[in-house]
């Protein structure tokens, strides 16, 4: 299926491909570092890595313009990086330092970078979906050609607000792209125990919303589908649902136990790991090993810098705890 799709897809310049490759690697290394720092007690609470799902954030954000908006879930570090938020401030936020993108207030699950159009990652499953709908409505009311991408998981697709937003977004034809990162699990519950139909994309039809199912471990497939959705949204044709099939890394969060119903599931993602797959495609298209290595080194250096920056930044002082409870006070 993937081979077939490749034949039809437009050929992107290899420079852009390399940028996508580097971004996926940056996210992977960022998440690996996050797990390491969590295990050292440097990240409070928990952290929810998107390892194995990098292609969705990277492919989708590559289809967005800098002034478009993105909202995502607590598993949203990848989207934040792909939307262009500096890794040093993101890592500092995970470590809840004052130099974090949210001044250490939000932590791993609450990232935000208004300047880059990242209007927040959210720790309440599906709550950001209607908020994204409202952001898209705002662009429409102002007559702007901005689109809003809303990332959420298969778990969120069972929540009422998902269905409510499908209805309202279609009714008001808002420029919203609903991107479902279907990784097969909601914490420990597999989709076979939570979803009435195998494809979440089917739900869009009931609201008159077009949908697509793509291989979520192929950044170019995601990019293409989101570009189509963005074009529709900008043309005033309303929302699209893009379901990206992917596989979750072994655990829900660094804090959770790794238990699955079927222990074989734990390493399922490695067989379809998007990064070596994409590297193979790039090689096939003529990218040299040296070029790939340069990108890998750059990604590694960026994440190391981010960790150093974060570790050297102070934690917020106790006197700041009431700051920002209310705006303008």
């Amino acid at each position: 299926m993937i081979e077939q799709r490749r034949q039809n897809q437009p050929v992107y310049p290899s420079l852009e491909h390399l940028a996508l490759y580097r971004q996926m690697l940056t996210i992977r290394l960022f998440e690996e570092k996050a797990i390491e720092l969590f295990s050292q007690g440097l990240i409070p609470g928990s952290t929810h890595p998107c390892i194995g799902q990098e292609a969705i954030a990277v492919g989708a954000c590559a289809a967005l313009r800098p002034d478009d908006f993105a909202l995502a879930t607590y598993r949203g570090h990848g989207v934040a990086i792909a939307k262009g938020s500096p890794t040093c401030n993101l890592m500092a936020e995970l470590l809840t330092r004052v130099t974090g993108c949210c001044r250490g207030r939000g932590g791993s699950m609450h990232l935000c970078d208004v300047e880059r159009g990242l209007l927040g990652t959210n720790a309440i499953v599906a709550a950001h979906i209607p908020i994204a709908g409202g952001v898209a409505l705002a662009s429409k009311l102002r007559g702007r050609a901005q689109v809003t991408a809303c990332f959420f998981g298969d778990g969120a697709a069972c929540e009422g607000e998902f269905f409510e937003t499908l209805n309202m977004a279609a009714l008001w034809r808002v420029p919203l792209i609903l991107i479902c990162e279907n990784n097969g699990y909601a914490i420990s519950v597999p989709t076979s125990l939570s979803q009435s139909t195998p494809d979440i994309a089917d739900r869009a039809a009931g609201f008159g919303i077009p949908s697509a199912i793509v291989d979520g471990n192929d950044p170019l497939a995601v990019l293409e589908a989101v570009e189509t959705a963005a074009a529709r949204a900008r043309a005033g044709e309303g929302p699209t649902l893009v379901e990206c099939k992917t596989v979750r890394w072994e655990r829900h969060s660094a804090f959770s136990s790794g238990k699955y119903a079927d222990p074989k599931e734990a390493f399922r993602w490695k067989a379809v790991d998007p990064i070596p797959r994409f590297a193979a495609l790039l090689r096939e298209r003529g990218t040299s090993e040296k070029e790939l290595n340069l990108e890998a080194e750059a990604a590694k250096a960026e994440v190391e810098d981010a960790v150093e920056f974060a570790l050297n930044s102070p934690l917020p002082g106790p006197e700041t705890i009431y700051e920002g409870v209310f705006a303008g006070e």
Partner: protein
Amino acid sequence: MSSRVLSMSQAINEAIAEEMRAQPELTLLGQDIGAYGGTFGVYRGLYEEFGSERVRDGPLCESSTVGFGVGLAISGIRAVVELEFIDFAPLALDQIVNQAAKIHYFYGGQLTVPLVIRAPIASRIGMGPQHSQSLESWFMHAPGLKVAIPSNAYDAKGLLKTALRDWNPVVFIENVKLYGSRCEVPEEEYLIPFGRARILREGSSATIVAISATVPEAMAAAEALDEENISVEVIDPRTLSPLDSETIATSLRKTGRLLIMHDGYRTCGVAAEISQRMIEEAFDYLDAPIVRVAGIDAPIPSSPLYRQAVPTCDALIETVRRFMR
């Protein structure tokens, strides 16, 4: 200053219309708010003046309606969401308490949520257990929310105008019983700052703090008690978050006695919080225990028994008499 007599419903309508004229992006969301004019007719004429884009009738889904309102607000478009009854607020509670209230804080101040959620209470008209509750204390329990609860047309207009210029989410609670109550409202523009209680009546023997629909009951009780030479001071806090503890404490230091009256359930109601604050701030001035004259801890029945569920003027008079002995 010239004025005229307006009902609370008209005063709310006027506040919104004025701010919609002044703020070209201000948008109203809700159900039955278009040509229908709002569940209780508060929006009459707004759809005709401002059109369907800004007076946006929508589907019955409280949660995502508030969610869309939050989305507009963080984009810089001030929004007003009407929940038809405050009893429906639980359907939207996550958006109100976990999103609107906290977004400014947890995103390090990058986003603000200029959102007003209007929530009518229908506690005194026999609407039954799912349409008669006074849930105002729930919203005091959420840092990041402001809560206004006017008891008359003058306060309603001035407080709502303030709410519509605030950069924080405001839950604006209106008792349906008061919509028709009328008082003088200035023609000229005025704002009432949040966190300033109003002393409606001065007195020396006891302080009664009353909110929302209990204010007229407290005022009537005060008149009746006056004839028995019991002089009571009546205070309407007007906003619950922020709460003007100082005005209440000052009154308590003068009278030595405090009764707190509200329709909301007695347990963990607003009175419990006010009472505790007074214990902390003015304990030495108390000549008697603080008394709650509040809604009963039971669902509010549909039968005429509902009248027993909320405190009345007579109940207050009786309590004060006992209290003064």
